């Protein structure tokens, strides 16, 4: 019997089947609950922003990859995911040209200029978001209140900043914050829906628990210290947890892979610092969307945090 030809190749001979498109698909699925409730509260406006952002992000990606002579890689879904996340950080009133500018900046400065996905030192979504905040502050703060009895068209964090802790209860209930019945960006409002999505990401092992958990832990701990010393002046940790996109930032922004650490200890510290800085910015900063700025700033430390390696077995 002549032995049939056998293939000889290196180990391992099997692979788990994980891939970027799979991770991205899972992230899209995880975002669905929060997007759906955003659309429920803000209606057609929200749909418009989401569609324009996703479509333009993918289009920019294809165009820029073509210009830079790289293989077109839109099928890995990463453009779609970042488009959707950016849309969730925009007000429902965002004009189309501003969205397209945002996605252009996001794809160019957040990805392609560094040689494509994986090499970017910053989270592209946040680069775009910060640029839009700086360039078009009026458009970024033109709010729609969700339907219902709303006495303010300010976001919870704006109320905290300008009216003080005592006024929060006049405008928002904790339950409202939990469900997402508040003024704000399209996708950041509903802590509940974002937590469901975040849990899905953890179960599917798309992200490690370390960054989100230490992030939220940092928020609770740091805001808790002030609240315990003076609850008249400082908002409760629960408020800080539910309002202003804390959950959004912890699960969907701080976990951006290329710009966050890879070592277990690095991840924990990174998340914790993000949480602390988020509260610092909210309490004393000139801006109030502390969670997003915090992620943007702390990602500068990523190369440093990656130096905190685990002790090698046997060393």
């Amino acid at each position, binding site marked *: 019997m002549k032995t049939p030809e*056998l*293939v000889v190749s290196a180990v391992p001979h*099997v692979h788990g089947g994980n891939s970027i498109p799979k991770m991205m698909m899972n992230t899209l699925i995880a975002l669905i609950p929060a997007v759906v409730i955003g659309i429920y509260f803000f209606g057609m406006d929200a749909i418009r922003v989401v569609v324009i952002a996703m479509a333009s992000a993918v289009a920019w990606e294809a165009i820029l990859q073509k210009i830079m002579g790289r293989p077109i890689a839109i099928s890995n879904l990463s453009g779609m995911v970042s488009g959707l996340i950016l849309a969730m950080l925009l007000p429902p009133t965002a004009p189309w040209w501003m969205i397209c500018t945002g996605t252009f900046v996001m794809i160019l400065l957040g990805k392609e200029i560094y040689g494509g996905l994986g090499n970017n030192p910053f989270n592209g979504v946040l680069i775009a978001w910060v640029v839009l905040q700086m360039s078009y502050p009026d458009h970024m703060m033109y709010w729609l209140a969700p339907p219902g009895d709303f006495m303010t068209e300010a976001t919870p964090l704006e109320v905290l900043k300008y009216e003080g802790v005592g006024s929060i209860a006049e405008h928002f209930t904790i339950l409202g914050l939990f469900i997402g019945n508040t003024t704000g960006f399209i996708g950041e409002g509903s802590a509940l829906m974002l937590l469901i999505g975040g849990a899905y990401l953890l179960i599917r092992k798309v992200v490690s628990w370390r960054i989100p958990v230490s992030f939220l832990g940092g928020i609770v701990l740091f805001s808790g210290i002030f609240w315990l010393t003076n609850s008249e002046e400082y908002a409760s940790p629960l408020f800080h947890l539910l309002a202003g996109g804390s959950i959004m930032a912890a699960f969907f922004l701080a976990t951006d892979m290329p710009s966050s650490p890879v070592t277990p200890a690095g991840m924990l510290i990174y998340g914790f610092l993000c949480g602390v800085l988020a509260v610092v910015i909210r309490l004393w900063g000139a801006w109030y969307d502390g969670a997003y700025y915090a992620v943007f700033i702390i990602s500068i430390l990523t190369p440093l945090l990656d130096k905190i390696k685990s002790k090698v077995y046997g060393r």
Partner: protein
Amino acid sequence: MKSGTFPGGLSLPVSAAGVSKPFESVPPSQTVIIPLKQHIGEPCAVSVKKGAEVKMGDLLGESESAAVHATVSGKVTEIIKKFPGMSGGYVPAIGIESDGKNESGGFLEGSDPMSLIQKGGVVDSDVEAISLHDKLTLAKEKSVKALVINSVDVEPQMISRASILAENAKEVASGIDIISQILGITTVYIGVSENAPNAISAISGACSSAISGACSSAHVVGLKAKHPQSMQELLVKALLGKEVPTGGSPEDIGVTVISVETAFFTAQAVNDKKPMLERFITVAGNGIGSPKNVLVRIGTPIKDVLEHCGVAPGHGGKVIIGGPLMGTAIHSADIPVTKETTGIYLQKEGDIAEFPSGVCIKCGLCVEVCPMRLMPLLISGFSESGSYAMAEANDILSCNECGCCAYVCPVLIPMVQWIKLGKSEIRAQRSSE
């Protein structure tokens, strides 16, 4: 019973086919080829001539570590000088044409256990195949205090070790007693995968019915079913909570790790005076459906084993010696089973993973799974770019090539390949200095 484990690793789906199965004996082949080197060290010196008539168990090659024996009765047809060895390079080998009679030769002579182990050719096979005689000599030199019996299968798809325990617990227990007596110790740990309850209850039963001997006080510990729990350093970690120092061996911290099948063959050599002529093997993989356990004579061509299992390696498929994560793909199924063969894994064309390598997205998954707590992305990257000094500074030499990192990498970087390259470059550099 507490269940032990180690941080990291892969929880792979374990075969649903049932975790222990009896072993079918593969009938003797017409011709067998028996390499004279089936363990680390020097090859055996040939002790037969071409044309000689041999019986089963007759000596073919002698060495201070482990002898090699005929596994069929018949005629020595050739003495091959350069036969491709499993761990690279060439080894001498002896071909025997079976006379179909399966006549047994004599028994091993003497009564000293150490010399019976050496004459019986007992080899302990894990990542490396070491003669038990050499292993015990080292353990005695280092005066080890504890014996660990590795009953965790080399990879999760393999079921032979759990099955040996379930089927032959008595012999294993006797082997453990013999080995601990040689070492003069009484502390024994038996690590078994916790998804093999039959194996656990069989060995616990055999141990508790023993009146005296180290086995009667052995700790049987169920371990989480995780790859690569079978690795010696991770077993030691899971069972004793200690780590083997970098660059050292378990003996350095007073432990020796011996596989369950080795205990079985020890009992056979010492009690029954029978040499090690066979190997317990699981044939698994998506080329075969549910895994099969077989008892195969050393020297049987792999293709005969496959034929017995009713499978043929399809064109473009893979035959792997060992498991899917760490095994070695062979180029021809004519290669014989040796004492080093820990298992056979079959892959059909189309099931073979390819690693075309993308750009690392720093997802950290490889870091998360690495059981040695290395930074696989870094050491593989440094090897790829030829920065071997950096790779070494990041402990590339501690990598045990378990394959976990490449298995989880979403962009399919062939990390183990890069790491192997880096390690061999660094070792070559060291030995040339």
